[in-house]
């Protein structure tokens, strides 16, 4: 079943402005892990806001599990489509971890015991159980984003959209988030990860490159990386290690597609010996 489907969607922020999304067709299957790549202003964040009704499309149709989004079913749509945003400091409503995670569950009017259970479930899923009564302001960036993910998980969404959720984190925080997201996907949640870090795209089962508000390239991450000259046209640069992998392969050394230095080093070592 299609978890998320955009068909012929157009959207612009102002009358005179260039449309942010133009005739976009994109569909995400249930259980898929899709990485959405694109330079600044390519329309990827707008897409996230359209997908859960924070913005309304000018024309075209957006459906979530077969239900087209209209003005009346926003509440249900938002329960299904959770969005985690970029800034770890401006997403939490409360000062204490459990109070913040409870916010969404409180909004939909769940009974108290159920909210308690869901806080436990959500914090376990992001590996933050021992921080249940901690003050959010004292956590690291990666931990704050994991709490943001937990806050969304407490609503038990079927689709999780991460709108550059790792952009403001250090490498360690980024790794924490990526691991959590990978795990959630394995547990059955459909993931749409918007990012400009190519490394993160490698985890996805499919990568989509956006340019000027529409889909420019689509395929498995390896296929996309293969077309690096084309990526350059859309202002996306493959990390150096990616080039190295390509060149090694062109030279007949069989290494896998990786952007991780450690993995590549091991593979080269095993080839040499």
């Amino acid at each position, binding site marked *: 079943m299609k978890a998320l489907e955009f068909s012929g969607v157009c959207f612009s922020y102002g009358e005179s402005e260039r449309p942010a999304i133009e005739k976009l067709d994109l569909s995400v299957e249930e259980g898929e892990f899709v990485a959405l790549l694109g330079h600044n202003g390519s329309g990827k964040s707008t897409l996230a*806001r359209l997908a*859960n009704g*924070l913005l309304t499309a000018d024309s075209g149709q957006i459906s979530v599990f077969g239900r087209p989004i209209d003005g009346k079913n926003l*509440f249900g749509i*938002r*329960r299904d489509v*959770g*969005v985690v*945003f*970029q*800034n770890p*400091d*401006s*997403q*939490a*409503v*409360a*000062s*204490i971890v*459990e*109070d913040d995670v*409870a*916010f*969404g*569950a*409180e*909004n*939909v*009017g*769940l*009974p*108290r015991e159920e*909210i*308690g259970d869901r*806080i436990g479930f959500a914090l376990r899923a992001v590996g933050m159980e021992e921080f249940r*009564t*901690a*003050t*959010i*302001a004292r956590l690291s960036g990666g931990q704050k984003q994991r709490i*943001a993910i937990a*806050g*969304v998980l407490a*609503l038990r969404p079927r689709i999780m959209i991460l709108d550059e959720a790792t952009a403001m984190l250090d490498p360690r925080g980024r790794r924490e988030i990526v691991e959590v997201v990978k795990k959630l996907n394995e547990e059955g949640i459909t993931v749409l990860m918007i990012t400009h870090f190519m490394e993160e795209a490698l985890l996805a089962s499919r990568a989509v490159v956006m340019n000027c508000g529409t889909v420019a390239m689509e395929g498995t991450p390896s296929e996309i990386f293969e077309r690096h000259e084309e990526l350059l046209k859309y202002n996306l640069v493959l990390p150096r290690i990616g080039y190295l992998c390509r060149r090694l392969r062109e030279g007949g050394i069989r290494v896998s597609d990786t952007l991780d230095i450690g993995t590549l080093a091991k593979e080269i070592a095993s080839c040499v010996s």
Partner: protein
Amino acid sequence: MLKDVSFGQYYPVRSFVHNLDPRLKILFLIAYIVAIFLAKEFLALGICAALLVFGVAFAHIPAGKVLRSVKGVLFLVLFTAAINVLFYRGKTVYWEWGIFTVTFEGIMTSAFLVVRLFLLVICSSLLTYTTTPVALTDGLESLLTPLKWIRFPVHELALIMSIALRFIPILADETDRIMNAQKARGAELDSGGLAKRIRAVVPVLIPLLLSAFRRADELGDAMDARCYTDGKHRTKYKKLRFSWRDLIVFVLIAALVAGVSVMRVYPVFAL
């Protein structure tokens, strides 16, 4: 300087005071403030202070933390005290120069004032140290419930307050960052006359205001994304409960207010 912002900051430990019902803590604070302003002699004020010392001890709040909350208002308090000492007209004159007079009564009044203000600040920060912002606003919401009858948006007000409290440390950090950025571009924030300093604050305030608006926008999106609509269909995870602890403290505070009121009418040591 901004790292010292301790107002409204919860101190997470488990204690007797932390477990009290937030509604009662708010009422206690009001009662306590009434008591310290009713107190007319040092004995009464001393009893108030002793009670507060017990409160802090039972709350497991380190003394340094408490003193830091006083530091913020130290200048204001000392300034007010100095004015009081110099201008209060009393009978027992120690020193006189032009319009300034230092009298025994003046010194006593300002000593009173200093102790009162310190107790006031310590007691208020004890409330915020021991009560999470959510509990505090839940308590306030519950206390203000009667206002719902006249369609006053009590829930919204409570939510606004809890968000405001949450953003204090974030905006304090941001101010620090902006000040450093402006200093790096040659802004002189700590030198020059008063007028110059006030002018130097403008390039800090404007970016701060802009960033606050941007954050508000982002938070609004995040709240919408988590199904926030209004207070009508919401449930609450935390329920407020009145327990035996609350009863004990209630009796103590009631006794304090009554005692201080009696001492006001029948002073033990007349001033």
